[in-house]
């Protein structure tokens, strides 16, 4: 698969996410969106929130707009692999830094062949969080659908 392309007309190329921005999740403390442009805070916890009316992405479109936009324009965003898949739910089950092992749930073959410049690596060494794009030659095998 070609990397980094964006042929779907769903947004311009996005800036690679900085890890700090990626972790600015603690900003959303209630169903009320946080102030746009609030300084990113790195928090390992996410309070329990009332999610009946608003989705993670809707709240984060205001709480952490860059991150939300990167996700939305990504493969995960288009294919509706939503925030909670990697980050868990809010509250005690929240994972600020998704474990790379979790990627193997859908990307078994890729997780088994993670390397960078010939050396073992972690998924996010190459793939920008949320945007998930990566540069260079893929070390992973092509899909083998039966």
């Amino acid at each position, binding site marked *: *698969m*070609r990397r980094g*392309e964006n*042929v*779907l007309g*769903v947004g311009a190329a996005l800036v690679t996410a900085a890890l700090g921005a990626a972790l600015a999740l603690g900003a959303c403390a209630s169903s009320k969106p946080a102030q746009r442009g609030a300084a990113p805070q790195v928090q390992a916890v996410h309070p329990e*929130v009332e*999610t*009946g*009316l608003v*989705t*993670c992405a809707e709240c984060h479109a205001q709480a952490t707009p860059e991150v939300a936009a990167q996700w939305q324009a990504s*493969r995960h965003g*288009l*294919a*509706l*692999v*939503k925030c*909670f*898949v990697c980050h*868990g*739910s*809010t*509250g*005690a*089950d929240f*994972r600020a830094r*998704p*474990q790379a*092992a*979790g990627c*193997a*749930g*859908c*990307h*078994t*073959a890729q997780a088994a062949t993670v390397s960078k410049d010939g050396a073992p690596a972690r998924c996010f060494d190459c793939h920008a969080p949320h945007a998930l794009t990566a540069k260079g030659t893929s070390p992973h095998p092509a*899909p*083998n*659908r*039966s």
Partner: protein
Amino acid sequence: MALSRRDFLKSTAAASALSALSGPVAAVAGDGVTWTKSVCRYCGTGCGLYVGARGGKVVAVQGDKDDHNAGYLCVKGYLLPQIMSAPDRHLHPLVRKSDGFQRASWDEAMGLVAAKFQEAIQKFGPDAVGFYGSGQALTEETYVANKLFKAGIRTNNVEGNPRLCMASATAGYVGTYGKDEPMGCYEDIDHADVFLLVGSNTAEAHPVLFHRILRRKESGKNVKVIVLDPRRTPTCRIADLHLSFVPGTDLAILNAMANVLFADGLVDEAFLKDHVAFGEGTEVNKARADYERLLADYTPQKVAALAGCSAEDITRAARWFGEKGRSAMSMWTMGLNQRSRGVWANQLVHNLHLVSGKIGLPGSTPLSLTGQPNACGGVRDGGALSHLLPYGRLVANEKHRAEMERLWKVAPGTLSAKPGLPAIDLFRALEDGKLKCLYVMCTNPGQSLPNVERYRRAMRREGAFVVVSEAFHPTRTSELADVVLPAALWAEKEGVYGCTERRYQLLERAVPPQGEARPDFDVLCDLARRLGHGDLVPFQSPADAWEEILGVARGTAYDFSGMTRERLRQAHGLLWPMPSADHPGTKRRYVRGEDPLVPADHPQRVKFYGRPDGRAVVWLRPQKPPEEVVDGAYPMWFTTGRVLEHWHTGTMTRNCKELQHASYEALAELHPQDAARLEVKDGDRVRVSSRRGAETFRVKVTDAARLGLVFVHMHDAEHLCNRVTVDAVDPVSRQPEFKICAVKVEKA
């Protein structure tokens, strides 16, 4: 004394929250995990996966990279391990006594079930009992139920929830091609230049297939995606054209698209001449000129005025679909099927393919998407509906009955010639007392039937005896039952699932059943023996039943007799027809060189061998409004459907911690102008009422809604959209019109 559903959920909520149900992420990295090949428990996409188990518990899943899904899973499938240890897993039999449900032994519960069924059969005849099964049951389970009721008890009252989801697709295929099930396959997605998604929110209902479409759109040249849906769903994010319309006018739109194909010279003349016949009503007695005369009434301009859309959009959709030299693939689901003219809607999609010749070629095919993992394999193919016998045979056909009597080794005349009652009629028979006993397996009609309060009352009617076999309790059905049997769940048992594309896959047992739960296969065999029909089920295991099933399918248009258990164990899904152990399977049915049932020397590229003349039928079907239309008293349209995070009645997904935080509650989605008119905003409560009933929902205002249309998802067990929906049915398929009714909406 059993707790009420509300109290039970309250008492388990705290425990559930504390347990923080360990997800697959933590477990994947762990040691000592054994992996067993299986299939996702949810939708009809049938994604292959491996179940990771440790210490007898399911701790993880991983997508099967060698299956059609190339390792991808949707959010629901990814979180599957959590359903196994849900706090409301039902782990021992319950029998209703005067003071509520009491725990019982298996012997006591099954003794009571057998006695009640026996008594009803003796007093009132075999048609006083019935079976209501599921497109989620394993093929072997459904097979045993079908055989027990039809050949043992001798009633054709064998139904299932596929009547609510796939009956119109089935009747559409049978009417047009003579045989049920699609001719295309998922691989066609990789070759399609144009996608027509109609009545399908693919992105949410079939996410892994949507992902494959997405990839095709990225890699193909000028790939177009057309979405026909009143709502602007997430599927529309990749649409080149979203055509929104007044609910119920899509029959006219599909005819208008055919009109454009003729007007613009996009018809495949040779294909029409060689492969197509024309019909109206139930007779294949029309000519092409008759069809063109019908279409003349459906100009884009005229239809646009009716449908509340633009004529240019209709024309554009048709031109894209029909453009010469480009492939076109249609996919649809409940938007077309759950309609009082669902069969017609299906056939109007087939018409577009037949007229343009875009069928039976890579990337050109009409592919009906299935909602449940084994509606196709178990119920449709297995013939576990009230008018069917296994593998394309019909109850009403004397030759077919005789054939099944021979295969099932029962005396000639054993099988009743009278078709049983389709789902809604079955529950109406319970209501009026003609049906005394109903065995419900792996489904939740107390929540999922349309106009549900009516049928909830029927299930609790004095004198009705309802058995529910379920992995969870309480559900909105088990709470109404007289006996609740604890069913083994998914990875706790072995059997075959058959998904949308004629792909059969084996789910192997990964862990033992919890508590006293037993696989439905064992329970049904037990019931058969207790009713004196043990000779019909001489099976030690589902594998034994599979051997018999292969023999029953042999020589039919479904022939998968080459699909041995061992082959299924090794393979990552096999597509029928597969008439011998060395046959590779069939990606494209009816196609010379691919389908073993088409002679290799057939002069044309396809042969529609399902029909006696070898031709597919273009049916002349006029626009017809839904059963209920908006009026002064009920001025808004009401429609229901799926969301990404939940599935069916939520018995499984609502147990997943992450999914409890995502679209858990059914909200009434309203267009901003409707919200303004009703003076409601996000979070306000509205009472949605129809002529049948009412339910209160919180409001979500969204410009993705169509003006005048309320959407509510169907997964919420506390806010039942089906109190509102209509139980009118398609006259041919007998499938209810869940998708459209008229309501009034008031601030609550």
